[in-house]
C-alpha cells in the first residue's frame, strides 16, 4: 500500500483473551507476527489481554483465536460490553480471527446450547450448525488471494492449515474470501475465509500465520507498508509447507500407521 497508517516506530499487537480463545496453538500467530517484525528491526509491543481486563482500542493489530463453545460465548459477551475491538476495527486496525474467533466476529453464530446468538458484526458472515460431522483435518486451498483494505487483490499462494470446527460459515455479499478449497471443508461452501476491510477470519489453525508466511507479511504490510517488508529466511517453513501439501493431497491424516499401531489402538 502506498500510504501505510502512521505507526511511529512501534507496532502494537494485542492478543485477545488467550485464556478463553487459543485452544489450538493460535497463540503462535502472535509469536510469528512479533518475530517477523523483530527480525526486520521493527519494534513490537505485544500485549495479551485476559478475560475480565480492559481491552485497549489503540493497537495496530488484534488477534482472536479459536476455542471451545463456552469460552467462545463468554468472549463474545466481553467484547460486546467493551466495544474496544469494534472501535479499533472501525479506525482501521487489522483484526485476524481464527475459527471460533471468526465465528463471533460475524453477524450470527450458534452458542454452546445451539442457540443462535448475535456476533460482533465486524465480518459479513453467518455461522450455522449443520447436520454433518465436525470438519477435522488438513485444510488446503488452491492459489489464494486476499482483498486488502485499499481494494487491491493480493496473491498469497496456497494456504495450508488444520481445521477443527462443527459450524459452517456463509459469507455475505459484502465479504470476500481467500478463494477455493482444494482439500478439506473451510467455510463449508467450497470457499475459505471471510474478509471485510481490515478484518480477516479463517478456519486455518496450524497456527495459520506460521504455516502461511505470505499471509502474515500481507497483514503486516497493511500496517508498515511495502518498503519495510525485507525478505526473511523461510526455509524451515518451505519444508513444512511442502510436507503438508503432500500430506493433504494424499489424504494422509494418519501418516505411516503400522500394524503395530493398529493393534495398540493408536
Amino acid at each position: 500500500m502506498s500510504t501505510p497508517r502512521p505507526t511511529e516506530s512501534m507496532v502494537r499487537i494485542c492478543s485477545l483473551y488467550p485464556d478463553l480463545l487459543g485452544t489450538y496453538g493460535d497463540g503462535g500467530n502472535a509469536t510469528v507476527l512479533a518475530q517477523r517484525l523483530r527480525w526486520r528491526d521493527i519494534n513490537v509491543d505485544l500485549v495479551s489481554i485476559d478475560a475480565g481486563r480492559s481491552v485497549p482500542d489503540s493497537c495496530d493489530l488484534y488477534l482472536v483465536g479459536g476455542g471451545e463453545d463456552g469460552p467462545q460465548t463468554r468472549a463474545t459477551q466481553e467484547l460486546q460490553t467493551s466495544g474496544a475491538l469494534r472501535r479499533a476495527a472501525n479506525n482501521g486496525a487489522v483484526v485476524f480471527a481464527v475459527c471460533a474467533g471468526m465465528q463471533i466476529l460475524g453477524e450470527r453464530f450458534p452458542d454452546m446450547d445451539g442457540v443462535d446468538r448475535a456476533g460482533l458484526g465486524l465480518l459479513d458472515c453467518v455461522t450455522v450448525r449443520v447436520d454433518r460431522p465436525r470438519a477435522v483435518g488438513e485444510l488446503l486451498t488452491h492459489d489464494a488471494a486476499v482483498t486488502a483494505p485499499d481494494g487491491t487483490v493480493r496473491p498469497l499462494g496456497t494456504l495450508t492449515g488444520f481445521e477443527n470446527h462443527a459450524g459452517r460459515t456463509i459469507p455475505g455479499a459484502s465479504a470476500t474470501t481467500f478463494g477455493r478449497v482444494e482439500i478439506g471443508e473451510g467455510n463449508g461452501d467450497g470457499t475459505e475465509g471471510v474478509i471485510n476491510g481490515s478484518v480477516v477470519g479463517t478456519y486455518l489453525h496450524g497456527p495459520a500465520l506460521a504455516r502461511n508466511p505470505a499471509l502474515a507479511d500481507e497483514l503486516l504490510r497493511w500496517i508498515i507498508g511495502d518498503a519495510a517488508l525485507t525478505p526473511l529466511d523461510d526455509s524451515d517453513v518451505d519444508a513444512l509447507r511442502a510436507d503438508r501439501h503432500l500430506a493433504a493431497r494424499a489424504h494422509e491424516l494418519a501418516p505411516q500407521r503400522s500394524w503395530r499401531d493398529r493393534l495398540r489402538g493408536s
Partner: protein
Amino acid sequence: MPSRSTSLPIRSRLAVGVGRLVAASSKAVHLGSGSVIGGRAALVVNPQLLRDLTAGRDVVIVSATNGKTTTTRLIAAALAGDRAVVSNSMGANMTAGIVAALGGAAANATAVLEVDERWVAGVLRATSAGTVVLLNLSRDQLDRTQEVRKLAEAWRTCLTATPPTTVIANADDPLVVWAAQVAPHVIWVATGQDWRADAAGCPQCAGRISFTGATWRCTDCELARPEPAMSVEDSAIATDAGRVPLSMRLPGRVNIVNAAFALATARSLAVPDDIAVAGLQSVEEVAGRYRVTSLAGRPVRLLLAKNPAGWHEAIELLADPPAPVVVSINARIADGHDPSWLWDVDFERLRSRFVVATGERRHDLAVRLRYADVEHVTADTIDEALRVAMGRPAYIAGRPVDIAANYTAFQEYFERVGGSQ
C-alpha cells in the same frame, strides 16, 4: 503366582484362556502388543470380564492427562511391600489392556489400574473401585477426544453415580476439583501445579478463574481451591500427620507430585508410611520413561512429553545446557493429528541448547524452534539425529543424549531398545 482362574465363573475362565491364547499367538508372529489383543479377544467371549476379574478385590483407579502411568507405577510400588498387587503398569489403559493385566492375578491382589481419561466412567462402573486418583486434566489430542471440560463433566457424573470410598485429587487443578468435589470423601493434594493455560475458564459457570499466589477461585461462582490435606515441597511431602521426606530416584519435582498421590493412596489403604516410602524410592524408570539405555549403539535417555502441560515439566528434566537434545514429534492417532500444541510449549526455554528435530512432524517442530530462536536442524531418522547431536562441540563424550519424544515416537524408540507392552 497362584492363578485366580479357578474361582471365576466358567465363562470368565474360558475368556481368560482365549485371551492368553490369542496374546501368545500374536506375540509368536511378532505382532507386538500381545496383551491388548488378547484382552480384546477375552472381552468378546465375556463382555462382563472386567467386573468378574475385580469382584472382591481392592481396586485403585488412576487417571489424568499427564503422569498416570508413572503414578500408577508408584502406587503399585508403595503398596507392594504390604500386599500382593496387580497393575497394568505398561500403559495399556483401556478395558482390553486392563483385563489382560488382571487375567493371571492372585485372588487377593489389590488392582492398581491406570485408566485412560475417557474410560474412567466405564471402568469405575465395572469395578466399583474403592479408590480413585485424579491427577490433572489438560489439552491433549484435541482433534480426537472430547474437549477437556466435557471430560471433567464425565468424571463428575460417574463419581456421583458410583461413588468410591476415597477420591484423591489435585487441589490445584480447577477442572479436577470441579469433577472430584461431588465425591463423599476427597483427600486434596496441593501440587503447586503452575500449568494454568487449560484451566482459566471456570468449568462450573464459564466464568474466570483467578489465581493469586498459591490459591485460586472463580470470580463468578463459589468454585475455589479446597483445603489440602497434603502439599508437595522440594524433597518432601507435608501432610496433616507430619512431614514425609523423600529421596526419589525418578527425577524432577513432577515425580514428587506423583509420589504424593501414591503416598495418599497408600495411607487410605492403611499401608504404613515407611513401607510406602521405601517402595516409592525404589522406582528407577517407568515403562521406559527416564531409562538410560543404548539406541543405535549410542547412549541415550528416553523422556516422554506429549502435550504443553507435559513439556512444561519435561524441560526441567533435560540435561543441563548446553548439552544438545533430540526432540521427536509424531502426529498419529494416538498423538493427535494436529501438532499445533507445539506453539503452546515454551520452547524459548531451550535457547541455550542445540536441538535436533526428528519424527514424522519434524518440520512443524523446526518452524516452532525457528520462531523461538532456538538453534536447530532436522534429521530424517533417530539414528541420524543422534549422530548429529553427538557430533556437536557441546556434547560431552560418554554422556547419554536426552531424547524427548511424544507418545508414538517414544513407543517406537522404547520398542527398539527392547521394551514392550
